[in-house]
């Protein structure tokens, strides 16, 4: 067992974990963050996506011990003060979910995508979500939601007019 201290959705936790425990299992089983889900065992589906220190990671590819001393945000920590995050709102308004199983991962990845590229084209959104599978929606409304969230974000015009892709990974 290893002792780890993690901040999850703004709350600090100190727990003993087996060194082989994946972050996603720690979040679900020890912290009770069952909003984050598991969809595969090969890191292909993205259902488990969370933010680690503000950047998206597939939490099935990270060991809980690797997150020691770091901050994790899950889908459950996005809405603040009863207000949905703009991306959550955009998913709702654009019917970007059906069964909702991929949705936590999709939303977390989409936020990260806009963080890196605040004014993406449709193709850039599609490429940016390549690691997240959805079997229900056919992606069209997810893409629409992300574009709508981009258009609604205040930084949108600055980024478009100014440095453009400065935060991007490309």
């Amino acid at each position, binding site marked *: 067992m290893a002792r780890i201290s993690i901040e999850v959705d703004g709350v600090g936790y100190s727990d003993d974990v087996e060194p082989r425990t994946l972050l996603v299992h720690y979040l679900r089983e020890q912290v009770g963050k*069952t909003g984050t889900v598991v969809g*595969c065992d090969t890191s292909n589906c993205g259902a488990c996506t969370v933010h680690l220190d503000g950047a998206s990671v597939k939490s099935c590819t990270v060991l809980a011990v690797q997150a020691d001393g770091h901050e994790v945000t899950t889908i459950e920590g*996005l809405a603040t003060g009863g207000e949905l995050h703009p991306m*959550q709102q955009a998913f*709702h308004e654009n019917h970007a979910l*059906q069964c909702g199983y991929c949705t936590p991962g999709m*939303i977390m990845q989409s936020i990260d995508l806009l963080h890196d590229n605040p004014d993406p084209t449709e193709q850039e959104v599609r490429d940016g979500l*390549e690691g997240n599978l959805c079997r229900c929606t*056919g992606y069209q409304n997810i893409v629409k939601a992300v574009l709508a969230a981009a258009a609604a974000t205040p930084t949108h015009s600055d980024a478009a007019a100014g440095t453009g892709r400065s935060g991007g990974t490309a």
Partner: protein
Amino acid sequence: MTVTEDRPTTEVGSSRLRKEDQRLITGRTRWTDNITLPGMLHLAMVRSPVAHAKITSIDVDAAKASPGVVAVFTGADINDEQGSLPCAWPITEDQLAPPHPSIAVETVNFAGEIVACIVARTAVAAKDAVELVDVEYDDLPVVLDMAAAAEGGDLTHPDLGTNVSATWVFDSAEAETGGNVEQAISEAEVLIERTFRQQRLIPAFMEPRSVVCDPTGEQTTVWSATQIPHILRLMLALTCEISESKLRVIAPDVGGGFGGKLQVTPEEVVTLVVSRRLARPCKYTETRSESLLAGHHGRDQIQKLTLAAKQDGTVTGLKVELLADMGAYLGLVTSGIPILGAFMYNSIYKFPSYRFVCKNVFTNKNWTDAYRGAGRPEATFAIERLMDELAAEIGVDPIDIREKNWIKHEEFPFSTVAGLEYDSGNYEAATAKAKELFGYDALRAEQRQRRDAGDQVQLGIGISTFTEMCGLAPSRVLGALSYAAGGWEHASIRMLPSGKVEVITGSSGHGQGHETAWSQIAADRLGMPFDDIEILHGDTQVSPRGLDTYGSRSLTVGGMAVVAAADKVIEKAKPIAAHLLEADADDLEFSAGRFNVKGTDSSVGLTDVSLAVFAAHNLPDGIEPSIDAEATFDPANFSFPHGTHLCAVEVDTETGETKIRDYTCVDDIGKVVNPLIVEGQVHGGLVQGIAQALFEEAVYDDAGTLVTGSFVDYLVPSAADIPHFTTGRTESPSTTNALGVKGVGEAGTIASTPAVVNAVVDAVRHLGIDDIEMPCSPHRVWTALQTASSGADTPRDKTMVDDNADPSHNAQVSDGSGAEGFTGQGGLG
């Protein structure tokens, strides 16, 4: 009939945002795997790595000694309780089926079959012990090729004496729904013969299957990621010989199904049996690899087709000789899947003669069963590919050949050669609209230019004009097809004293938006605010009667049950309202949630009546103090949505790479309750159909091992693989239900596969190619191009019999005797 006709706005028809979203976008979800109960144990399955073998010994001692392990069960250990998994659809009286144990007892018949079950205090401890179970196998011959298996040779189940489970025939001459197809073939001026392979697919819902059983109450509670809580309860009771009244089944949030969760699974039976044995709550959640390996597969058919026509393009007959791979066992509706397609090969066309023969064959593979569309995508693919081939053969536009043969809108209702009565439709309108949205003529012109210029990237245009039968029901028809259950659906409405309403539905949604759509229907019918209506479903204790969700049946059958229950509520409320108003019931009219005395401004609200019956202080003499009502709806007919789908594909003739440039579809699903939800259903359906055309295939190697056992190899498309869709609608209301609705869950999947493959073939037809086997991967397209340009003469039908471990060998090449492809200039003479 609509009681709220004079309301200024209606909920039905509006794009209401979904009420179920709030939990799903904030992570307040109840997936089965989230459930933890005091004292709960965890299961892991030991699965056979071999496809066909006798189990000679199983040593579980090391596993039992592993830390945290509580028990290990083999098939022999639970054989007196596990029963045989059910097949609810014996398609013929002499259908053969092997016993279907949840844990294999003497032999394993496919790789992935469960041979033992570990029970431990944690999921990790259970998984760790899987490796420690030592199973000795004595290999048996592995049967993989359905065509060879149908002819004899090695047997999947030697006890049955054959690999053929059943042979099912429909013949229009015998059924007196049409003429004799052999005669049509012998007199044909044009004969199109093709063999198509419907590759094996995997439903690949995103939430892996999970089941929790709690035997600690008077009733054993089963939570399962299932589409069918009601059917599951009955089948678990029958299979395990438990009193049905001692079981409660709950489908909490369920993350997609697509037919893949329309099953009574070995894992559910094992978890139930083990939890009862140990008197402890137990949970089993599959890994994705297990899901791909052992969750049932879909499709996997070989279609030998003969289309007879006149030189002017009029089809005179269609003969279908089908082989369907059951895999190793019959699941819940495995054997009936091809039969669901049998009535759809004639599609929207007026064929005078039709014969369908299906042989269901056993092989040592995972069993097949329902996957989105279930039989109808296969049928639609076959006929829509054939219509393109016929058009090419006689040199006319593929849309013209369809129009020449389809049922005209003024000919509805129309009795088809397959014996169904189509209630309504307008193929002309949908096609005209689709052509316009797509820019059909301009794309054809561009295609001609590119062909003439010999461009490296060629343009292909694919057409699919489809229909489907949906809304499973009617019960009488299902009975005539030997299906074990009916097809009705149930709803009840509870009028709460506070003025709120609970609608309980027997249909069990898992992403389709039932909560929103049912609220819209009930809101209109009862004249109540959308937000005051709560939809309850998916729990046999809350929703006692139901036949669940599959086959695009929820709205056409379950939605209608809500309508019928609401009408009963109003009926029951009326005499009480009259009493409260001191008026004659005959003088009341119900509108916008209120009973009005005609010609006066005296009125009382339905919610006032709810409160009045709750208090029951002042009711008419002898009246029951309740206006709650329930209804069971069983439609008189299926519904027949249709549509025209057009796809433009660019094919790189050097690399074989294909890219969908445009995809436009116009669907006619009758009246629409929520356009937003409908569009979402269409998008998702399209992608699953496109995935069959271009990406997905479950591949077994020569030993019967699933090669595509993870998402690395089984290529579920991502957003980056998929184009933007243009969707449109026309509206021919169904005449068989009061809502006028037809169902939309499977439409996109059924229609899109042939549209895409027709487009790919169309792009390279002028190069001598008239078929490419699915999925049309770059490698297959490239191989077809190479073979065509080398002038090799590949006999068309020979290529179809193998299950291809080598994906390259199935490209089919025209012998050049047919037309050079439609040039856009021809017309029907």
